[in-house]
Structures are given as C-alpha cells and as structure tokens.
C-alpha cells in the first residue's frame, strides 16, 4: 500500500474531477477490495454448518472475548480521525500520538487474534480439520493481514513525519491511510456479525 502514497501528481495539481488522484485511486482500490472480502465471506456463508466433524463454532467461540477485541479495533477508527484532524491543524506532535495510538489498538486486535487462533488450535481446530477451520482461518486471517499492513503503514507515517514529508499542506497521505484503516474496520463489523454473532446451529 505504500505504493499509492507518494506519487507524481500531488494533490495540488488540478484534476478533471477535482478529486486528488491518490484519493480516487484509494477509493477504486477499496471498491476492488470489497469484492475480495465479498468472495471470502460468501465462501464462509456457503459452508456454514457444513463441517462433517467438529470442533464446531459453538465449541470454540468466546463471544465476550472477541467482542472486546472488536471494540478495540473500532475504537482505533476514532483515534485515526483524531490523527487526521491533528495534522490538518498542523499539529505534528498530536498526529504522532494519535497515529501511534491507532497502531497500538490495531496491534492489540491482531495480538488478540493470534491468541484466539492459538487457543482454537489447542482445542483441536486446525486449518485442515474441517470446513469451519478452513473457512474461518482463511477469512479472519485475510482480515488480520489487512490490519497488519495497516499497522505497517501507520508506523511508516510516524517515521516519515520525522523527515518533514508530512505537513499540514501534505496531509493527504494521512487521509489515505485513514480511508484504508476505516475500510478494514468496517469489514470487521461484517465479519464479526456473520462469523461470530449469527448462530450456525451446530
């Protein structure tokens, strides 16, 4: 994702639509990414309750635990907004604080996911155990990878902010990472609902 951050056309150049090129590119990319998650979620839904052997979702899920980590991830959208607001005011210091906070919340979520995967694995659910394991790990793993890439981008932003590349006028990079971050959060709302909250029956 670093690739779309720094580009030949800066946001100050006039474009046909008035939208900066980078922002338009990010929107089209996110639309494309919707289809990626769409196909993954479809696969999951199609195979719900089709596992021939256990463990089944109700055997392993700890809904309160995952609810907390979901809340942590959603809270990171707030800190992301605060980071963008800070740089748009020209407050580089606050921006770093909020970006780091966002990254920390993201890491907490990914850490929680790693813990969850480990627990499930100990309880006998492997990638190859049944269709539930297959679809669950691949879907949530894809999402976790998206979050991890987002964290890398957030930390890169903080590092770049010390080189003078991020200024009040050049705040678009922060905005783009924010768009990506919010998208990943929204996708999690769908995944959390479909995978954890809607009961499967077995």
């Amino acid at each position, binding site marked *: 994702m*670093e*690739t*779309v*951050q*720094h*580009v*030949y*056309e800066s946001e100050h150049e006039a*474009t*046909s*639509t008035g*939208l900066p*090129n980078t922002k*338009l*590119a990010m929107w*089209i*990319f996110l*639309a*494309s*990414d*919707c*289809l*990626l998650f*769409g*196909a*993954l979620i479809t*696969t999951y839904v*199609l*195979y719900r309750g*089709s*596992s*021939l052997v256990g463990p089944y979702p109700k055997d392993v899920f700890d809904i309160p635990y995952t609810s907390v980590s979901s809340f942590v991830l959603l809270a990171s959208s707030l800190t992301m907004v605060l980071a963008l607001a800070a740089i748009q005011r020209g407050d580089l210091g606050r921006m770093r604080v909020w970006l780091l906070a966002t990254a920390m919340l993201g890491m907490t979520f990914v850490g929680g996911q790693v813990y969850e995967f480990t627990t499930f694995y100990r309880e006998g659910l492997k*990638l*190859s155990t*049944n*269709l539930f*394991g*297959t*679809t669950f790990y*691949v879907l949530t793993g894809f999402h976790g990878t998206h979050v991890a890439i987002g964290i890398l981008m957030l930390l*890169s932003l903080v590092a*770049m902010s010390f*080189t003078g*590349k991020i200024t009040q006028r050049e705040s678009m990079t922060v905005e783009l990472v924010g768009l990506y971050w919010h998208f990943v959060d929204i996708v999690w709302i769908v995944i959390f609902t479909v995978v954890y909250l809607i009961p499967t029956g077995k």
Partner: protein
Amino acid sequence: MASVSVPGDAVRGGLLRRPRSTVGFWSWVTTVDHKRIGILYGVTAFLFFLVGGIEALFIRLQLAQPDGRILSPSTYNEFFTMHGLTMIFLVVMPLSAAFFNYLIPLMIGARDVAFPRLNAFSYWLFLFAGLFIYSSFALGGAPNGGWFGYAPLSTVEPGHNMLFYSTGLLMAGIASTVSAVNLAVTIINMRAPGMTMFRMPVFIWMALVVQFLLAFSLPIITVGLFEALFDRRFGTHFFDPAAGGDPVLWQHLFWLFGHPEVYILILPAMGIVSEILPVFARKPLFGYQFVVFSGIAIGFIGFGVWAHHMFATGLGPVANTAFGISTMIIAIPTGVKIFNWLGTIWRGDIRFTTPMLFALGFIAQFVVGGLSGVTHAVVPADYQQTDTYYIVAHFHYVLFAGAIFGLFGGMYYWWPKIFGRILNERVGKIQFWIMAVGANLTFGPMHILGLEGMPRRIQTYTPALGLGMWNLVATIGAFTIAVGVLIFIVNAVASFRRPKDAPADPWDARTLEWTIPSPPPPHNFDEIPVVHALDDFWHRKYAETEEGTLVPVPAGGSGTEPPAGSGHGSGHAIHMPSPSYYPAVAALGFPLIGYGVIFHWWMAVVGAVVVLAGLYGWALEPSAE
C-alpha cells in the same frame, strides 16, 4: 529530450542512485514514461504470442491425424493449458495494456498516466509473472489442468504444475489490478481541459470499462486462486467433497471472474475498431452514445452471465434458464455495436488500408463467433455443445479472429505514431488475407468437428471416428496463420530499416494523438490541448457545408503538424517524473515469494524483504527531481 527539464546533480542518496541515462538497457528498466512502458508491454506480449502460437502449432500437429504421436498425453495437457494461459493472460491482456498505456494519455491530452512508477511496477510484475509460470517447464512440469483449473483435479494431483498456475496467476492478477486502478484514475482525472466524458474517443471509453471490469473481477479469482492454493499446499478443504466442500464453488468463483474476463479481452479490440472505422470511412462514428452505453451495458451485464459456462454442472432448470436469458440479453448491446459500425461505414468514403481491412475482418469474424455464442445460451443446445470443439471454434472466432485481428489493426494503425514509420501497406494486406484465410480454415471446421462429437482437451482420437479430414484442414489453417504472423514480423523488422519519416497525421485522423509529432516527444504535448468537441482534431481540419460535404479549414488554424522546433522556445520547462529502479525491484520480490510458496519458505522471506525494500525505497524517493 526537447524541453523536458533534465535534473541536475543527485540531491539525496537513497538505497539506489537515481538512474540518469535516457538510452540503453537501464533506461528501459527504469523508465516511467507511459509510451516506453507501452512499447515494453507490446514487445513482451508479442514474444509470448509467438510462444503460445508455437504451442498451438504443436497441438494442431498432434491432432492433424488420428492416433497422433507427436505429444505424449501429459505433454499435451501442459501444452493446451499453457497455450490458453499464455494467450489470455500473457498476450491479449498485455497487448491491450500496451495500447492503453501508450494511447490513453495521448488521446485524453495528458502528459503521462496518474501514477507513472506504479505503471512501471505493473509491467515488471506482469513480465515476472509470465516468466515465473514458464519457469515451471524447467522445474518439474508446467500447469496441466486447463486454463480454467477445475477443482478438484487441480487441487489433488501431485506435482507442482498447478501450484505454478495459482501462484503465477495471483501475481499477474496483482499486476493487472494495480494497472486497472492507475488507468481508471488517469481517464477519470487527467483529461485535458474541455475533454468531457462524452468527448472522449470510444477507445478511451472501452478502456475505462475494461479497467472497472478488471478491478471488480480480479479480486474474485484472487480469492478462488488462494483457496485452490491453500487446498493444494496447506490441506484446506474448500473444494474437497470428502470433507463437505464443493468443487462447483471453484467454477462459480472462476467464471464470475472468467466471463467479465471475456469482455476484458474483447472490449479493447472493439475500441480500436471504433477508432479505425471512422477514420477510413471519413465519417464520424455512427451513434457515438449508443456505442458508449452499449459498452457500459456489456460491462454491467457481463457480471450476470457467468453460469452459462456451467449449464452442465447441474445447477437446475431455474438457474440455467435465468442465465440462458441473461446471456441472450448481453447479445443485444453487442449487436448494437455491430450495427453502429455498419452504420459508420455505410456510404462512407472508404479507404481499404490494412488497418481498415483488419477492422472489417474483426466485424465479420466476430459476428460468426457472436452468433455461435448465442447458440450456447440455449441450454438444451449447450448440453450438446459443451466440452466439444464447437466451443473451441466459438471462442477462437471471438478471441483470435476477433480480438487478435482488432489488435493487429491497431498495430498497423498506430505503428507510425509509435515508431515514426509506416508499415508496408502492400505486405500488410497480404498478411491480412493470409491470416483471414488461415483463421477461417482453422476454426471454421472446428464447428463441424464439435457437432460431430469431438471432445475438447483430448490428446488424440481413433480413425474410426472419421474426424481426420477436418482436423487436417484445421492444422493446415493453423500453419497458414503462422505464415501470416511471419509476414508481420518481416514487415515490422523492415519498417525499422527505413527512416523515421511518418508525418504527424498520416491517416487524416480524428483524435488528439495525431496532433503531435510521430513519434511523440517524451512530454507528449508542448501545450496541453483544449478540447471543444468530440473528434476535436477533425473539426480543426474540416468544416461541413450546408449540404454536408466536407471542406478543409484553411491552413493557419491549429491542427496539422506543429512547426519544427516548437517547444524548444516555449519558455517554460515541463517537469516529467524521473526514472526509478524501485518499481522493478519491488516487482522482483514477487516471483521469489512464489517460489517460496512452492519450494522453500526462506525464499518467500527473501522475496518479502525485497518487496518491502522496493516499496520503502519507492515511497521515500521523490517522484521527480
């Protein structure tokens, strides 16, 4: 480099020094100029075209007579799979990308694409993906499960063959997605002043539709390929019936991508034909809006017809009927286009140049392929046709006699703009007729073979079936096509022995790329043009009297060839993005990751480090110095 500002000394030391040279090997590796990247795409795709063509010739030799012994069954499987993969992913798509890259900025009046370095990255990743897939021949066997890679065959068989398929196509998919985002932004956002959406050339419209088709269909096949890769490599059960999985899910994911892909392959050729016909009929395109909207309609409906590839999988009568109807509906916007093209040449002042011949050949032969396509929409008929040579005949009429003919027309048409030299017209016409005869000789008899019951993808057949005669005719046709392609190579090579003497506007054309010298300077336009109408350049050259006859606009208006040396004294430097090593470096990491997934994990780690190093070097490097 005319008035392009050449940057001074290196300002900063990055991981790699900023490339400086403008000629030679490294200038091509590091280029971010959309024209050079377009040429790279074109040359690479043409070389793959020769490889895929040689595979086709071997297939035809094997099938020329019953009980053929030229290719063993396993080699035959590899050859027909690689022929399909090559022609679709490494020839028609990148050849279209070559035209997109070269022409989109020129036709919309821009100096480059929106993200020049991302553009270079797309090319290198496409090249490495192609080489990666072909390296499988040396590393234990090429993909052999068909270009469609049906599960569970593709996920259970031993050997690395289909792992190269899934990882290689994932890479090519990333390259195409990145390129689609880049080109869509370019078209939407970088049009010259006055170039409203409905003043864009039809080629640009078709390009835009294709970019959205790519952006929305590639993620679906990406998921399918990941699932197949995980089934094969990590023991998941996505397509494993023994664990409750459904192999038909693969077909849904594949064709939900695969059918939009068909339009990804054909719409660029339709765009090219829509540019060629008005120029050589000396009439505006008949019903511009209809052609544009039918292209958009094809883009939308293209996502709703995929299951017509799966009528025989047992989806049930309701689903089959629904998809049969939607398939017939998509023939309507396609038919609209055909009639608009006929309306364009109707009573036109037609010049039968080589590009025009290829465009007309496209229309005639595409209609044959389109009509046989409608017969597949009739479900009971499709039950008889599916998996026979009738299908092979159909899609080769569409993709070879259609798309490739359109792309050859584009090559003849834009060759003078790209290389400053006109291809020999007489040789070109000979090539056209040889290829037209060859194509119909090859693919025409396949209709009969299919209806006589010859299945697809078989390595050989017994004499008792009586299929030998038409198979022999098809093989003779295939070699006739090869002669046509050789003639093109001779023509192309010969053109480089002549001086660069093509005028700016050799065909008396209508669109912006013909207003600038051939070949264009690195910055394309000395002054960004201001557009006042559809076919703006034409209106600068000609006015129409009350009776509708054309009269040339007296010289002195803008238009024709810009005076020599203009641009040198225009007084202000044009900043173009600087070349960069990083796109190629970042792309180089991907095949390493691919080999890592197939062979040893440490290679994947090295690959990931290379990708990250490339991306960070890229992000920290200013795009222009």
